[in-house]
């Protein structure tokens, strides 16, 4: 009977089954690769801690040995292994329309952690920078958030720089305020006085500690500054350095009250690839705030095109060198040869 022959044919070919050990290894390798590619979105306490680790890398987990976890809620996320190699993280500051369809990312900062050494680089992208968006044509980079959300901006920065972004943090202005207040203020040094276009308050040149509300007001200013949004981006870099400095001074692990307030910060979202949050924190933990180096184009390179869109352009000579250094993980050499692109250190 044909049915019997069929059963026999099936049984006879069972030996053709692929060997299980290599099969299993192949499955695990492929799954790991795909997991890395798949961006996960996290919210809640874990995301806040990780964004804090991004914004304030120093000493958050310093008193715990690697593998020692401070919050049971995040203990289950992933094994604590500090990622190897260079890391590229994207920090997006969202304007007051955050959560609405017309939301824009007005602060776009790439945080580069080199494979070796204890420093980090903050590379700011001016909000009006023109970029090509597949299917959309030219767009201002802050509009890529409106077009494609955090992932849209991530892809725009990846196309621009040629590096892969490992994690993206979205931060609303309100979150900066909560974090700064929870830390007891953020120390910022201004090279020139800033008058708030929004509140009329004057922030004098020099160093002082800013309360949360002042820090967010300061972060919004670009009108009336010599280099507009370029100057604002540099203020943003100073605030990140200040948060890192303050977090480093506090012993957060022994300060349950501060930690609790930080963990409750609303307005933060984190998208990670295969990075474990604590692993990321451990890695960032090696960085001293004074070794955080800000990089940005010094000033405007505006060009009005035939159509009405006037946007910012990158320096055609220096920007390619910057991105090449970023890809090759040689920003240390870049900052030595381009001092005018480097945030002055007080």
């Amino acid at each position: 009977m044909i049915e019997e022959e069929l059963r026999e044919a099936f049984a006879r070919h069972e030996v053709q089954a692929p060997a299980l050990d290599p099969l299993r290894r192949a499955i695990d390798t492929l799954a790991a690769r795909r997991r890395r590619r798949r961006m996960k979105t996290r919210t809640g306490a874990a995301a806040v801690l990780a964004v804090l680790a991004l914004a304030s890398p120093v000493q958050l987990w310093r008193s715990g040995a690697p593998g020692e976890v401070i919050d049971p809620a995040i203990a289950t996320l992933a094994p604590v292994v500090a990622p190897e190699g260079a890391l590229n993280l994207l920090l997006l500051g969202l304007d007051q329309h955050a959560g609405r369809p017309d939301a824009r990312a007005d602060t776009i900062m790439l945080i580069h952690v080199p494979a070796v050494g204890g420093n980090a680089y903050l590379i700011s992208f001016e909000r009006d920078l023109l970029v090509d968006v597949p299917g959309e044509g030219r767009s201002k980079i802050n509009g890529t958030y409106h077009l494609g959300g955090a992932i849209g901006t991530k892809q725009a920065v990846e196309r621009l720089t040629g590096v892969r972004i490992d994690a993206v943090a979205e931060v609303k202005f309100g979150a900066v305020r909560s974090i700064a207040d929870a830390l007891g203020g953020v120390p910022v040094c201004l090279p020139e006085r800033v008058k708030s276009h929004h509140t009329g308050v004057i922030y004098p040149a020099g160093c002082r500690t800013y309360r949360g509300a002042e820090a967010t007001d300061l972060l919004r200013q670009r009108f009336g500054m010599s280099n507009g949004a370029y100057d604002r981006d540099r203020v943003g870099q100073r605030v990140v350095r200040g948060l890192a400095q303050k977090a480093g001074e506090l012993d957060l692990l022994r300060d349950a009250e501060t930690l609790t307030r930080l963990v409750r910060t609303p307005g933060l979202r984190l998208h990670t690839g295969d990075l474990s949050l604590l692993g990321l924190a451990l890695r960032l933990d090696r960085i001293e705030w004074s070794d955080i180096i800000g990089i940005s184009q010094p000033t405007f390179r505006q060009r009005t095109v035939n159509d009405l869109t006037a946007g910012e352009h990158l320096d055609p000579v220096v920007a390619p060198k910057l991105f090449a250094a970023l890809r090759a993980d040689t920003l240390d050499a870049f900052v030595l040869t381009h001092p005018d692109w480097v945030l002055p250190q007080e």
Partner: protein
Amino acid sequence: MTYEEFVNSRLGALARYAVMLTGDQHMAQDLVQETMVRVQLNWRRVARAEAPERYVKRMMINQYVDWRRGSWLRRVFLRPDADAAVAVPVDHAQRTADRDLIWSVLATLPRQQRAALVLRYYEDLPDAEIADMLGCTVGTARGYISKALTRLRESAEQLSLGGVR
């Protein structure tokens, strides 16, 4: 059940099942690999299924039936290691060659028909479950099986005619 436990106990059966569906060791490897990667990444959803193994086998059928020619070609060309095919045990060369005619005719069947045969004669499932696995009605599933059997019978007759000659 954890993913590890599932793999430890079921990977062998899934690999054999993939051979029955695809008729080829390399394609079977691709089919299991592709399916199990998705199983691993979505384990919680798979584990919630009433019968995880059956859920995974259904994923494999869908994958197998949906695989397009283009992606097959790509898979074949991109394969890094082309190990030698495993020989099927031979007790009597001519008889095996004759019997393997069934195997080669199976390869010419439309994929739904082959899948239906695997489910009935390898997995020994009742028609209702075969239909469920294939996502079709019981009538359609029976149709697949009867058409496939007719085709196999015709080929077997040709074979025996050839043998007489």
